[in-house]
C-alpha cells in the first residue's frame, strides 16, 4: 500500500530528528565522515549519538587493548573484548546501532598516523580528540586541520569534570532556527500591501460601510497599517518611536474597537511592542556584509559568501532593507482574507528572491564560474534567514596556547571561586602533567593513591606557571577555586565516570550535529561542565 506523501521507511525511523533539521540536515549528516581519536567512554558515547541519527561513516584511531577498567566506563565494549584492540571492538559494537552507518578502525596511535600519513586527515569531515593526548600532538592536529577548515573537537573528561574545545576557523550559518522570521514591514509597507490596506481597511471606522463581523475579522496587520496611516498624518509622517508613543498608539487602537471582544484588535495591540521597530540590518548580518570574504569575492568563494554578497548589494539598492522572508503569523481573519494577505507577503518575498538570484548569477559570471552553479533553493533559504544568518570566526589552538592567549578571559573570572574557569585551569594543568617529557607513559595525576599528594602539588605548580606565562597576577586567595578543581581532578586519577562521559558525549554530539548540518548555533569555543554543581559555562579562549 503506497499513499502519496506517506513517509518512507527511512523517514519513519528518523521522523523525530527530521522535525529538527529536515532533509537537508540529514543529507549533510549522511555524507559526513567522523574521526574519533581514542575509544574512550566519552568518545564512544559521542559516536553513539552520531551513529543513531545516521552519520555516514566513522573511523576510530586507537592503539589500546581493551582492559577491565574500560568495561567499567565504556558501554560499547564487553567481556569478550578484553585484550583485543579497543578501536576494533568499539567499532563493532557501535556499528550494531545502525546498519546504515559504516564504521572503520585503525589500530594505531594518532602520533604514528600523523607521522606516516598526515594526508589521511583530509578524509574527514570532523575530528574528535579524546583521552590523554599530549599538547604537542594536539597542536599538530590543530596545525593540519585548522587551515583545512576541518573542525576539531578536543574533549577532556576526568571525574566529575568535562570540557570541550571546538577548533574551527570559520563557520557560517544560515538556518539558525530563530523563534520567528516574521517581518511585517509595518513601517515601510510595499505598494501591494498599502494597496490592500486602502482596499480593505480604509473604512474600518465607518459603521455604514462595514458589518460587525467584517470589522471583527479584519486581519490585525491591516488594522495596524490603517491606524498607522492615521497616526502619521498627525505626527509629521512619523510612526510611534518611543515607549510612551507606542502606548498612546495602543490606546488609539483600543478606541477603534466596536466590541469589547474583538480578538483581531487585541492581536493588533499585542503586536505593537514586538513589531514596531525601525527597519535595520542586525549586527550579525552586518558583520557578514563587512567581512573581507564578502567584500572581495574570489574564484574560490563558497556559495555562502556569494549569496551574502548578492543580498548585501540587494539591500544597498533597497534602502537598507533585506529581502522579505515572507512568513506571516496566524491571525483572526476570514480564510480568504488571510490567504490574500499571505500571498501578498509571499509574492513580495518571491520578487525579492528573483532579484537576489539575478545578482548571484551575474556575480558568478563575473568570477568566471558557471552562473547556474548555485541552486535557487539555496538562495531562497538564505533570503528567508538573511536577518538571522551568523558567522563564527574561531581561533586555532595555537592561538589559544601560544600566539595570542586570551589572558583577560581567564583573569576576569579568577576571583569568583565558583567560576568554571578554575576547571579550565585544572584541565590545562592535567594536560601539562601528561605531556611532561618525563612522563613518557602519559600516566594521569592521582593514578595511584600513593601519588595523590605529590601530583596535586605538581598540578598546582603547572597552573601558577601557566598564569605567570600569561602575565596574570595570582595569589593563594585567587586560586582557591583552582585548588579545589585540581583536588577533584586528581581524585579521579585520570578516570572517566560513565555519567560524565555520557553527558560529554551528548554535548559534543549536539555540537557536531550543529556544525555538520550548518543549522542552529554551535558554542564558541570552549564549554566546561562541572558535575558537582551541574553547571556549564562557555568561554571564548
Amino acid at each position, binding site marked *: *500500500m503506497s*499513499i502519496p*506523501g*506517506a*513517509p518512507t521507511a527511512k523517514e519513519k*525511523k528518523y*521522523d*523525530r*530528528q*527530521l*522535525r*529538527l533539521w529536515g532533509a537537508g540536515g540529514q543529507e549533510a549528516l549522511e555524507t559526513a565522515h567522523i574521526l574519533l581519536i581514542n575509544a574512550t567512554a566519552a568518545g564512544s558515547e559521542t559516536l553513539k*549519538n552520531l551513529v*543513531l*541519527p545516521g552519520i555516514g561513516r566513522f573511523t576510530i584511531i586507537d592503539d589500546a587493548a581493551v*582492559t*577491565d*577498567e574500560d568495561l*567499567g*566506563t565504556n*558501554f560499547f565494549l564487553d567481556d569478550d573484548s*578484553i*585484550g583485543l584492540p579497543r578501536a576494533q571492538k568499539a567499532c563493532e559494537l557501535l556499528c550494531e546501532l545502525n*546498519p546504515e552507518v559504516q564504521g572503520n578502525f585503525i589500530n594505531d596511535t594518532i602520533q604514528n598516523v600523523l607521522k606516516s600519513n598526515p594526508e589521511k586527515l583530509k578524509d574527514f569531515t570532523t575530528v574528535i580528540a579524546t583521552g590523554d593526548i599530549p599538547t604537542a600532538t594536539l597542536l599538530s592536529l590543530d596545525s593540519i586541520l585548522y587551515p583545512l577548515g576541518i573542525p576539531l573537537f578536543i574533549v577532556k573528561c576526568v571525574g*566529575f569534570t568535562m570540557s570541550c574545545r571546538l577548533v574551527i576557523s570559520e563557520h557560517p550559518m544560515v538556518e539558525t*532556527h530563530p523563534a520567528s522570521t516574521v517581518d511585517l514591514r509595518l513601517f515601510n509597507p510595499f505598494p501591494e500591501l498599502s494597496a490592500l490596506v486602502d482596499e480593505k481597511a480604509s473604512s474600518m471606522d465607518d459603521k455604514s460601510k462595514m458589518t460587525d463581523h467584517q470589522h471583527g*475579522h479584519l486581519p490585525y496587520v491591516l488594522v495596524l497599517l490603517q491606524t498607522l496611516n492615521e497616526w502619521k498624518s498627525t505626527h509629521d509622517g512619523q510612526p510611534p518611536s518611543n515607549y510612551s508613543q507606542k502606548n498612546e498608539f495602543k490606546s488609539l487602537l483600543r478606541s477603534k474597537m466596536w466590541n469589547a471582544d474583538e480578538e483581531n484588535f487585541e492581536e493588533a495591540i499585542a503586536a505593537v511592542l514586538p513589531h514596531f521597530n525601525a527597519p535595520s540590518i542586525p549586527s550579525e548580518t552586518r558583520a557578514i556584509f563587512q567581512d573581507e570574504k564578502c567584500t572581495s569575492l574570489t574564484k574560490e568563494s563558497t556559495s555562502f559568501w556569494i549569496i551574502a554578497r548578492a543580498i548585501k548589494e540587494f539591500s544597498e539598492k533597497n534602502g537598507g532593507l533585506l529581502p522579505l522572508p515572507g512568513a506571516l503569523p*496566524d491571525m483572526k*481573519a476570514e*480564510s*480568504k482574507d488571510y*490567504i490574500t494577505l499571505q500571498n501578498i507577503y509571499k509574492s513580495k518575498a518571491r520578487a525579492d528572491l528573483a532579484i537576489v538570484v539575478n545578482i548571484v548569477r551575474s556575480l558568478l559570471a563575473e568570477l568566471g564560474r558557471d552562473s547556474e552553479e548555485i541552486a535557487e533553493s539555496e538562495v531562497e533559504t538564505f533570503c528567508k534567514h538573511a536577518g538571522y544568518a551568523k558567522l563564527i570566526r574561531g581561533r586555532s589552538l595555537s592561538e589559544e596556547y601560544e600566539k595570542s592567549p586570551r589572558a583577560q578571559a581567564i583573569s576576569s573570572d579568577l576571583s569568583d571561586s565558583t567560576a568554571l574557569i578554575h576547571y579550565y585551569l585544572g584541565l590545562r594543568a592535567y594536560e601539562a602533567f601528561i605531556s611532561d617529557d618525563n612522563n613518557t607513559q602519559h600516566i594521569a595525576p592521582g593514578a595511584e*593513591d600513593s601519588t*595523590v599528594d605529590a601530583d596535586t602539588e605538581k598540578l598546582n605548580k603547572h597552573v601558577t606557571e601557566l598564569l605567570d606565562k600569561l602575565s596574570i597576577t595570582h595569589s593563594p586567595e585567587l586560586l582557591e577555586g583552582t585548588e*579545589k578543581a585540581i*583536588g*577533584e581532578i586528581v581524585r579521579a*586519577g585520570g*578516570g572517566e565516570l*560513565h*555519567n*560524565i562521559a*555520557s553527558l560529554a*558525549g*551528548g*554535548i559534543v*554530539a*549536539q555540537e557536531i*550535529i550543529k556544525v555538520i548540518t550548518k543549522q*542552529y*548555533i554551535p*558554542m*564558541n569555543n570552549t*564549554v566546561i561542565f562541572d*558535575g*558537582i554543581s*551541574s*553547571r*556549564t559555562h*562557555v568561554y571564548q579562549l
Partner: protein
Amino acid sequence: MATTTVLTTESPDRWKYLNNILTRKGPYSDETFEPGDEPKAFLADLKILVIGAGGLGCEILKNLALSGFKDIHVIDMDTIDISNLNRQFLFREADVGKSKAEVAAAFVMKRVRGVKITPFNCAIQDKDDDYYKQFKIVVCGLDSVEARRWINATLVNLVGEETLIPLIDGGTEGFKGQARVILPTISCCYECTLDMLTPRAAVPLCTLASIPRQPAHCIEWASVIQWPKERGDLKIDMDDPEHVTWLYTKALGRAKEFNIPGVTYAMTQGVIKNIIPAIASTNAIVAASCCNEALKIATTASPYLDNYMMYTGDDSVYTFTFQHEKKEDCPVCGNLPQALTVDPESTLEKLMEKLQERPETTLKKPSLRTSSKSLYLQAPKQLEEQTRPNLEKQLKELMEEGDELSISDPGMPFNLRFIISFS
C-alpha cells in the same frame, strides 16, 4: 594476558575509576562522606527504580549499570516502534513490537555483567505503595505530564518516619532538556512547578469549523470534526496508518478548498500525535545528569543538585541551574489550599471548563465538592445523575466566599484544594 583461574566475580580493576571517587574524599564532598568500602557496598545493595524505558530510560539503565548500581527495576508499558530507533539504542529493528522494559533490561544485563534489572511491562498505576516503598531512589524518564504527576504525588504520600524517596526527573524536547531532584515534602515537587508548563494553545472551534487559515487548522478539523461525523464512535488510533492516511486525505481536501498550502503527511502525524522532536544527544545529556545525581545521592560522594538544571543547546550551550521554590499552597506537598477567584454569576459547568485551561487543573474526570456538599461527582452513576443539575446552576447558589472547594480525579492520587472568593 593469561589467567590461571576462572573469574567468578568481576575483576577488581573493573570499577577502578568509580572507586577512585568512592574511596577518596573530594574538596566538595559532604563532611559526613566516609570514603572507603562502605559507599561501594551501599551502592551495590541499594534498590533503584527507573520509570520509562524509552529515549531517556535506555540511557538511564545503561548509566546506572555503569555507575555501580546492581539492583534496578524498570517499568514501561510501551512496545517498541520503528520511530524509536534513532535514539533508543538498546532496540534493533527485529525488536519492533516487543516490550520496551523487557528488551532494555535484557540488553543491559547482557552487556554489563553483575547487574540485575527487573522489568515490568505495565502502567505505573498498576503498582501499589508497598511496591514503591522498597526503593531508595526513583529516576524518571517519561514523556507524560500525567504520569509524572502521579508518581510525584505517590512519593510525596509515602513520606513517613522511615521513608523519603528522592525523585530524579528528566525531560527533553529537541535540543533542550532539564534534570531535577525532588526530595518529597522537603524541596519543591513536580506539582509545585506545574505552572511552568506552557499549555498548548487551543484553536477555537469556530476557526476549525468555518475559517481555517493554517494547515494545522485543516488537520484538526479532520480529526476533531470530520472523524466523529464520518467514522462515529471509532477511536482514532494514531499508530494506525489507515487512520492517519484518512485524516491526511481529509485535511488535504479541506486545505485545497481554502487554498491553504503546506499540509503534509508528516505534519498530520505531528499535529494529531502532538509529536515532540527527540534526539539521542539530548537524551544522553539529560539522562546522564539525572544518573550523576542518583550516584551522588546514593553515595554522598559529592553534593547533589538543589534542585533544577535547564539545558539549552540550540544556541550555543547554555545551562541555568537554580533552586526552584517550594509552594506553600501546592496541592501535593504544601499545607495550604490555593486561592481561586470565580464569577458568582457563572455556572459550575463554566467553572469546570475554565479549570481545564490551566495546566495544574487539566483533569480527565474531575469531581467537585465543598466541605458541606458534593457539587458534581463523575461516579457512581446515580450520584452523577443526582449532581448533574448543579452544572447549570450559578456558583453563588452552590458555594459561599471562603468555602473550600476540593477537586478529585481518578487519575490523580491527591485532591486539589481551593479557597473560593467571588470576583
